[in-house]
């Protein structure tokens, strides 16, 4: 039980996918301009992550032990189809959200955070429960980073930021400061 707690906390805060592993930077920098969009994209990513973790576990347990070399290809295929599916669902259920997420929804396919989740969970040898908790932590962590970033960026938009810094440079520096702040979580719940 405690192990699951640690896996969750570790993926959520200590080894936050964006702020410690640099995964999912493209959407992190691209979609974090608006708070509500960021939040929804975060949840979409979380959802895809959960499904991916489940599929990765299935693949690992029943297919990849016989053909480990197919790992990458099969993960990619699973993620691509999942995203396709979610895209269809969102398009039907909420056209507004579909417009808001725009180009970035198909790009979840190449969102390294999703693929990274599948690969890391495999490397760490997680079972089903651990993998799902890991996905939950990673997805919530991604959402948290995205939402914090979006809030900060909306404020920074109003500030007289020097012209040269506008755009990606300031966003990266904000991310750097956030990443420094998240260092405070190091060792959380693992300390003796």
């Amino acid at each position: 039980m405690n192990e699951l707690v640690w896996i969750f906390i570790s993926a959520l805060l200590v080894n936050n996918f964006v702020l410690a592993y640099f995964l999912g930077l493209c959407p992190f920098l691209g979609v974090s301009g608006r708070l509500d969009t960021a939040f929804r994209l975060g949840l979409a990513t979380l959802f895809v992550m959960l499904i991916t973790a489940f599929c990765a576990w299935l693949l690992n347990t029943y297919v990849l032990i016989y053909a480990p070399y197919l790992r990458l290809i099969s993960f990619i295929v699973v993620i691509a189809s999942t995203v396709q599916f979610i895209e269809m669902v969102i398009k039907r259920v909420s056209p507004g959200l579909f417009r808001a997420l725009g180009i970035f929804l198909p790009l979840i396919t190449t969102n390294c955070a999703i693929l990274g989740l599948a690969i890391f969970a495999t490397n760490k040898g997680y079972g089903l429960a651990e993998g799902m908790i890991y996905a939950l932590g990673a997805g919530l962590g991604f959402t948290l980073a995205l939402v914090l970033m979006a809030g900060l960026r909306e404020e920074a938009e109003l500030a007289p930021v020097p012209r040269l810094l506008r755009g990606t440079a300031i966003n990266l520096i904000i991310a750097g400061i956030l990443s420094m702040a998240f260092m405070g979580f190091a060792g959380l719940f693992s300390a003796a």
Partner: protein
Amino acid sequence: MSGGSEKALKTPGCANSEPSSTRLVATLSIAGLLSGLIIVSVYEATLPTITAYQAKVLREAVFKVLPEIDHIQRLVYVDGGLTPKDTEDPEEEAVFGGYDAAGELVGYAIPSAGPGFQDTIRLLYGYVPSERLVTGMEILESRETPGLGDKIYKDLEFVGEFERLAIDPEILAVKKGTSTAPNEVDAITGATISSKAVVRILNEGNRRWLSKLPAASGQPPAKRRAVPEPEVSATTPHEAAAPSAAPNTDPQQPAGSWPLEAGG
């Protein structure tokens, strides 16, 4: 110029006609087939080198943590006993037995893992059952802070603490320069958390394995649960429960619970 050519070439091949779905499926199948073929051949070509390298790394680590051994044997714990087995199976827990030239068992190299300051630390440690001593510790994987936490493998003084270290009643990390008892380890100044994590991972490995390891040398006994060890220390409460089953299936992952506040 380049813009013009871009437009001209934008729709190559069957520009206006909708390709049949058979053709789409066929294209993807051929692509998949070819890619599979390439991947399998590269995999087959590189596999021996990769396996040999991994085995070499592991072997070197085992030789580092166990003194004066001649050869090693991978042992898996099945049906309450240790059996030699070389193929890996994630369902089984394994240790490495180290033997001297005469084939007598010297000790075991036990893999263990647990949370460190930043991420999971994986390590291997040598254990000699006849003396109940840890004989060495080698970090296999860690992401501890450079310059601080990474001293758990860069600081030879700290690594040296694990040579001839008593395990009873439990290994303890104490403030640097204050270790007096044979079961105490000097923690690294400024990296107390990482040092304590290493010690905790060792204790965790002991909890999981000690009752499963026969002390006698030679052939690992089959199907014997009662272990001929001097005594199982009463101060480590987990030990009593440990032999009941192999609770965790993955040799890389420690069994049972992370001791949330253990060792405090």
